[in-house]
């Protein structure tokens, strides 16, 4: 066990699963990255942010496939390889590029098991980077997990830390259904203790990063860290929070969310995806339907405005949910007073 970065945790998960199971292959743009430099390395890029570095050298060109810039073809090929016996891990680089291959994901991979009467397995993982805060502009900054969550037949995973990333990615690779695995591009250098051995974290079980009495905060991916920081500050003011990291948006651990809301009576949802039809609206609807009478204050959402992600740094930081915004939302829900009807 040692401290590993989010990037290393993902690299280690891929490496260990490729060693364990020869049917695991990688496909994607720049997953090797070509020859480069005076040293003549064969994986100069190792992924656009270096996540797959070293895998090409260990596993070679038959298992690490550096593809052309044609998402429709290689995501389609990966889906086909999955139904015919391999376990491909295809990298979409920026999740925003899903526009080029949505049919392959939405109408093909997601539907195989259902349309073939349960006889087909599609053990496909699609890794992609998501999220703003990287100053990468509107076409490279979206948090599109609600789009995938909307499609039955897909599993959607959003790891919130290096430990979570390794265990969830190994589960994704061993899973027999298509899994969308979303990595926040700002988190690759975050570090924590990660076991050297392979391990799995099951889908559909939320993690409580802290337990409190006053407010339940549900947050996703990078927002879990923000929520924990806000909860630290709020604790000093005497407000104690439960922070739920659902880990997967599909399947969603509804029970844990409902139980925690029943305990605290207050709910704040932090979601960095566009605010219409996102996870915050989904969970707000769930709680309104199933736990309305346990609420002591209206549900609050900490979400960005309904605009493309701005490129200008100051506007981008204004756009993003932040620790301060979460703190303000929790404080507001605590200050809410029910007006008695006369």
């Amino acid at each position, binding site marked *: *066990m040692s401290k590993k970065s989010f990037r290393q945790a993902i690299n280690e998960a891929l490496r260990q699963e490729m060693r364990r199971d020869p049917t695991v292959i990688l496909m994607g743009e720049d997953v090797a990255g070509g020859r480069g430099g005076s040293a003549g390395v064969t994986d100069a890029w190792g992924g656009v942010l270096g996540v797959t570095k070293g895998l090409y050298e260990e596993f070679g060109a038959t298992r690490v496939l550096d593809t052309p810039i044609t998402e429709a073809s290689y995501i389609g090929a990966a889906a086909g390889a999955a139904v015919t016996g391999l376990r491909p891990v295809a990298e979409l680089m920026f999740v925003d590029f899903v526009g080029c291959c949505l049919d392959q994901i939405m109408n093909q991979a997601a539907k195989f098991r259902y349309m073939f009467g349960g006889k087909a397995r599609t053990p496909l993982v699609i890794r992609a980077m998501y999220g703003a805060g990287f100053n990468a502009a509107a076409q490279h900054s979206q948090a599109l997990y609600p789009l995938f969550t909307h499609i039955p037949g897909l599993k959607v995973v959003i790891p919130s830390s290096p430990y979570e990333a390794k*265990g969830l990615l190994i589960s994704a690779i061993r899973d027999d259904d298509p899994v969308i695995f979303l990595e926040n591009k700002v988190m690759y250098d975050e570090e924590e203790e990660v*076991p050297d*051995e*392979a*391990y*799995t*974290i*099951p889908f559909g*079980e939320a*993690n*409580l990063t*802290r*337990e409190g009495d006053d407010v339940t905060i549900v947050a996703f991916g990078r927002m879990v860290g923000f929520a924990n920081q806000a909860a630290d500050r709020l*604790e000093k003011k*005497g407000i104690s929070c439960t922070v739920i990291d659902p880990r997967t948006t599909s399947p969603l651990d509804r029970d844990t969310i409902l139980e925690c809301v029943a305990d605290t009576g207050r709910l704040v949802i932090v979601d960095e995806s566009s605010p219409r039809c996102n996870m915050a609206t989904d969970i707000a609807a769930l709680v309104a339907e199933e736990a309305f009478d346990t609420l002591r204050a209206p549900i609050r959402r900490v979400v960005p405005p309904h605009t493309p992600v701005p490129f200008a740094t100051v506007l981008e930081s204004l756009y993003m949910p932040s620790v301060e915004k979460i703190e303000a939302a929790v404080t507001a829900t605590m200050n809410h007073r029910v007006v008695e009807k006369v």
Partner: protein
Amino acid sequence: MAQDITPITMPKFGLAMTEGKIAGWLVEPGASITAGEELVDIETSKITNTFESPLAGTFRRQVAANGEMLPVGALIGVVADAAVPDADIDAFITRFQAEFAESAGDGEGDAAVDEPVTVTVGEYTLRLHERGEGDEIPLVLIHGFGGDLKNWMFNHAALAQGRRVIAFDLPGHGGSSKDVGPGTLEFFAGVTIRLLDHLDLPRVHVMGHSLGGGIALTLARMAPQRVASLVLVAPAGLGRQINMDFINGFIAADRVRALQDVLKYLVHDKSLIGRRMADDVLRYKRLDGAEAALRTIAAACFPAGQQGDDLRPDIQAADMPVTLIWGQADEVLPATQAEGLPAAITRHMLADIGHMPQLESATAVNTIVEEFIKTKVATS
């Protein structure tokens, strides 16, 4: 006089504990207290435990308020004789706080030493944590089925006064490698002997809990010259009966809620089993190979729904001092299994305590062990 003033500081209950919250003071300032009296409830991210006074005196000052979160080692209260003037107490607190703030700024120099390490013993990798130093015979702690060295979090440091105390993860457990061979008591006792060789320890006290108690007894049979004394905490091997709902449930549970229910068999006070504790166990259980190791051990040690090893002949034949500690409310191995043993074996039957007395009644267990080593072992 400053030497009459004793600081009460935030204790360190376990490896992972870096800070604790004052969950509630149990004494008022001005109260006269005895050694071992319950002073304050401390809440960590994993468990809430009562901190007991290390000495007798007057509880002069409550420095930390209820609900306050403080790092390990921070001043939470002051004990002194009633005759010590208030001004001296104030000066003491000021000086302590200044020195503590300074040492906290020094970084992790000292803390880094007090951590588990990994050693290679033949084909096995073992995680072990060593504390304490001194001339007394070292003590080795062997945890039970599904446990790890953190099972001794409330005992390890307390027992490491004047002696080395080594806690380690058995193969298949915690941070150790997951190959458990045939999964028998003899296998684990054999690995323990090789660990003693590796650490160059010719003779040790052995304290074992549950399956670890069975391993300790097997070790005493296989290498009696290595064992100075045996402390057996709810040990395996003294009866057939075992709660297979615990064993099978522990192996099968892969979700927090399911595991939390199973872990409740371990204690009498069910409120001790929090979500964090289940999370921690799941981190181990989800490692590749962990579940298979547990299944191998269960098949070898608990075939056909009961304990396979009868160690009563071993405990009767043991010629080193032996003591037995058992919680009367044990729901895994019934406390009646402590009956019918030679009179030379002192038995400590703890009322309203479950299968983990070392956790649920840590101070009592620590006192029993110290007394046992001091009297029985010294005179034998």
